[in-house]
């Protein structure tokens, strides 16, 4: 039987209360939402928090999915299943539905949350690549107030984020811009496993020219889950198969995969290039309205 180390349990009744509790309990306290990343690590005693602050009752404040001005807003406590079921998410950013369909399995998606996935900062996590491709902003709140951090600057390393111990992620804001399309491509060994590699792309077109592009990569050691050299090379280029492949090669060259039981380095690098090409191709087709 896997038994976590003892901890004290507190249940937050509001966002203010959660932040207050985190301040009182100190840096060894952790927020628990879905718990589907944290609890397995606690069972293996890879994580040993002194205290858990349960935020599951804060759905009214933290689980909304809505359009606010020119941004899609996804609450940190939104469940993966809610994102997958959301029509407004699919209408603006089909990349989320591509990714959510292959995150964990349907039962895990019922409880696991968007904010939990991002804050766990697993180097093979899918949504970090999605939000990085879309250049989303995370809204954080602590005792000192509210601040916004680009998801591209949220992760400082494996299992490590810029969140202070008393900060709570409130929501993700994804800028909505016209002329865009987005897609996510992943290879996994079986349902529920970590990806061998995955790539997300968002493309904004001016006619047949790539006006702007975002690329996110996961499980291949890409710094901040991004591929800035590939994005830079593709901006202003014609939206063709040749440009996509050239950018994807750059993305693969600049990432840093590790060999493990999911595959050797050269295979993962090959996947990084191939999946980036496929994601760019589908994102562009969607921007042109040629694909749902």
């Amino acid at each position, binding site marked *: 039987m896997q038994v*976590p180390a003892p901890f004290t349990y507190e249940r937050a009744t509001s966002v203010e209360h959660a932040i207050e509790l985190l301040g009182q309990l100190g840096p060894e306290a952790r927020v628990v939402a879905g718990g589907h990343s944290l609890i397995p690590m606690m069972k293996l005693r890879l994580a040993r928090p002194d205290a858990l602050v349960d935020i599951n009752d804060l759905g009214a404040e933290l689980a909304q999915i809505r359009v606010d001005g020119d941004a899609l807003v996804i609450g940190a406590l939104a469940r993966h299943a809610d994102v997958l079921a959301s029509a407004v998410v699919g209408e603006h950013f089909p990349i989320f539905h591509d990714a959510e369909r292959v995150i964990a399995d349907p*039962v*895990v998606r019922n409880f696991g949350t968007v904010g939990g996935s991002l804050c766990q900062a697993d180097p093979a996590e899918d949504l970090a690549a999605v939000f990085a491709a879309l250049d989303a902003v995370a809204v954080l709140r602590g005792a000192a107030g509210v601040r916004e951090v680009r998801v591209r600057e949220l992760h400082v390393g494996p299992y490590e984020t810029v969140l202070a111990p008393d900060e709570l992620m409130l929501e993700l804001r994804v800028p909505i811009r016209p002329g865009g399309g987005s897609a996510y491509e992943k290879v996994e060994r079986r349902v*529920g496993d970590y990806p061998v590699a995955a790539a997300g792309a968002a493309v904004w077109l001016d006619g047949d020219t790539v006006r702007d592009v975002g690329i996110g990569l996961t499980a291949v050691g890409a710094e901040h889950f991004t591929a800035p050299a590939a994005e830079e090379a593709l901006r202003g280029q014609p939206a063709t198969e040749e440009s996509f492949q050239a950018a994807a090669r750059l993305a693969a060259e600049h990432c840093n995969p590790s060999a493990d039981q999911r595959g050797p380095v050269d295979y993962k690098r090959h996947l990084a290039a191939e999946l980036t090409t496929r994601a760019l191709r589908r994102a562009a087709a969607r921007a042109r309205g040629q694909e749902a």
Partner: protein
Amino acid sequence: MEVSININGTAETHDVEPRLLLVHFIREKAGLRGTHWGCDTSNCGTCVVWLDGKPVKSCTVFAAMADGHEVRTVEGLDQGGQLDPVQEGFMECHGLQCGFCTPGMLMTARALLDANPDPTDPEIREAISGQLCRCTGYENIVRSVRWAAEKEAGGPVTESETPVEAKA
């Protein structure tokens, strides 16, 4: 800490450690052994129960997190002694061999049919994709869920006499 969970309509209140997992609360504290405890790593899905109406893996939820909430287990599927159609379907279509994965499969199947009364076979397979049958009896599990869907729709129900092998 005192944790009170409404399980199948009955309040179960027990003094537990915060680190007690929901699956162990259900089995050891409430004495409901229908929910099985399997891999302990949220892979196998035999521990699936409903938490506030949605299937979750109860080995990956602390009992404390379910305090004040509603849980439904496999013991809560039948209505006054009348088996749920998914339970009947598993009987009719040989949906279980060793039976270890069955409680989780039944809970997920019930949730699927509540949300989608006429699922396709790929939709059934998708719904149970987070659950493992180590007898590898998936073909008959899918048939069992189809049987339940057809029964609930009032349409023609697969004959239980149909040899299982004939369709495999």
